[in-house]
């Protein structure tokens, strides 16, 4: 019997080996997924909801009101889209053009610069299959996949037998964690856990570069040089090394220069790749889609056919400076995920929330449209954290409209 596999859209790994048991469009059992994936896939829920000022309305009214907010705004903000399909993202870009909007996503305050560098070919990268099949030295830097991407180590990076790594983690792979905290991933790395102080990453990188170049590694926080030299030796011996770069690393750097420096030296001495630990299942897709259209991965403002770009068009700065006068938020909850000192300004402008779940943002939105869970109730395509394209079909049928269908209707109405 042929098996039916589904894709989990619970995180940037987009695991494609999920089996489910469902009855009457309710998912009862989920196999192979992790704890987060199971919760995600079972999250599909009953009735559909369209609210204007917290009062139930029909779909047409909600769409009309949303369109009218966007039409009347001088500079609407369109934000979110990390958990939307490519198809939805492309529509959102079109809508942003049509409404002269500011368009941004969560990569703006997380891994955006790294994805941009990868799209501009400034860093050597590889796929997760390459990692599984070939990687012998794996560094988790400011990343804790055991918590954020639960099947990362078991499916790809550490535990599996790969085609060229038949002896697996016991003999053929070295996993290294560099972090400010002994995370669950760091525990797995055992003696190869390098604990550095918060904000100490740049110095650690430069000390490591010194060690790789045969010099004495020094840090102001007096990290034992012997340990850094040991680390450098392991890295020098890598036949296929990979750095999984997480938020902990990115937040600690002023810019990416230290990462470029390190990757350059690592590739003079050995063979190293970098993969960003993208959290939302299609954040990287958003970056790619916008990049293809504008040459930028995020933080753009469309104005009568021209594209402006810069930090002033980031979600954070536009809310802080109050330059946006309405917001369309798709699959994101900025009232929870942004600093309250910034997100509170959303309360002063009309907000349209399109989201499969009720959130703090949807509760305070003028308009809330409850949509299908992307990947569970609606299909499409997306980009995995390593840049691999993945297509998926819905697991169950639903009464909820997809965010794609809603955006199409709003687009027609503006």
């Amino acid at each position, binding site marked *: 019997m042929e098996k039916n596999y589904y894709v989990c859209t619970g995180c940037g790994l987009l695991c494609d080996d999920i089996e489910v048991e469902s009855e009457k469009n309710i998912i009862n059992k989920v196999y192979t997924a992790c704890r987060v994936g199971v919760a995600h896939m079972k999250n599909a829920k009953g009735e559909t909801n369209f609210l204007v000022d917290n009062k139930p309305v029909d779909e047409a009214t909600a769409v009309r009101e949303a369109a009218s907010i966007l039409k009347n705004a001088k500079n609407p903000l369109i934000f979110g889209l990390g958990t939307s399909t490519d198809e939805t993202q492309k529509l959102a870009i079109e809508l942003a053009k049509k409404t002269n909007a500011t368009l941004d996503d969560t990569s703006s305050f997380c891994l955006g610069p790294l994805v941009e560098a990868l799209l501009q070919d400034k860093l050597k990268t590889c796929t997760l299959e390459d990692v599984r099949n070939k990687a012998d030295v794996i560094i988790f830097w400011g990343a804790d996949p055991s918590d954020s991407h639960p099947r990362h180590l078991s499916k790809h990076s550490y535990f599996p037998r790969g085609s060229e790594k038949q002896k697996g983690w016991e003999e053929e792979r070295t996993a290294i964690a560099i972090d400010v*905290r002994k995370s669950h991933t760091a525990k797995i790395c055992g003696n190869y856990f390098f604990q550095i102080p918060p904000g100490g990453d740049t110095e650690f990188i430069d000390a490591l570069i010194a060690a790789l170049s045969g010099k004495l590694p020094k840090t102001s926080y007096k990290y034992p040089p012997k340990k850094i030299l040991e680390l450098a030796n392991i890295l020098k011996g890598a036949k296929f090394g990979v750095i999984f770069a997480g938020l902990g690393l990115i937040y600690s750097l002023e810019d990416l220069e230290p990462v470029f420096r390190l990757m350059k030296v690592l590739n003079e001495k050995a063979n190293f790749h970098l993969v960003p630990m993208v959290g939302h299942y299609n954040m990287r897709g958003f970056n790619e889609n916008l990049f293809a259209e504008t040459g930028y991965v995020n933080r753009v403002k469309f104005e009568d056919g021209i594209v402006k770009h810069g930090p002033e068009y980031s979600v954070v700065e536009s809310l802080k400076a109050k330059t946006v006068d309405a917001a369309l938020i798709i699959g994101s909850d900025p009232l929870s995920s942004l*600093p309250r000192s910034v*997100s509170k300004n959303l309360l002063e402008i009309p907000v349209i929330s399109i989201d499969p779940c009720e959130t703090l943002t949807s509760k305070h939105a003028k308009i809330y449209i409850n949509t299908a869970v992307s990947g569970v109730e609606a299909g499409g395509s997306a980009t995995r954290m390593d840049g691999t394209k993945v297509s998926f079909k819905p697991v169950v049928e639903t009464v909820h409209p997809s965010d794609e269908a809603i955006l199409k209707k709003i687009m027609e109405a503006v």
Partner: protein
Amino acid sequence: MDFGSFLAAPEIKIKIVTYRDIFQDKAMIENRFGEEYRDRSAILKLDPADFKQLNIKKGDTVILKNSFGKIVVKAEESGYEIPHRGIAYMPNSPWSNMLVSDETGGTGVPKFKDISATVTSAKGEKVTELRF
């Protein structure tokens, strides 16, 4: 008369480092307004020495305060072997975000993982509710 209540409760300055937690993520997907998500988010993990200085017991609430906000969360010892006095850990959540500065230097990137605050015992005050 309980003169102890007139004495200022010990207050310490800390840096809060935020992190992700799989159980907390799962709880959020299931119900972001639920008790489990709150219990797994509104929690501060302190160095044992800091914990002792605050004169509290495991699960007691503490007040975290800075110029951006004030929240009440539960406190416990971190359980890490390496001492980390002055640094405390907290899962990334709407609670931690209530303390994040809006100062970005124009970069568009808030310092989510680098929060300075003071901690004092909340003397039984309840954990902050998730609302605006």
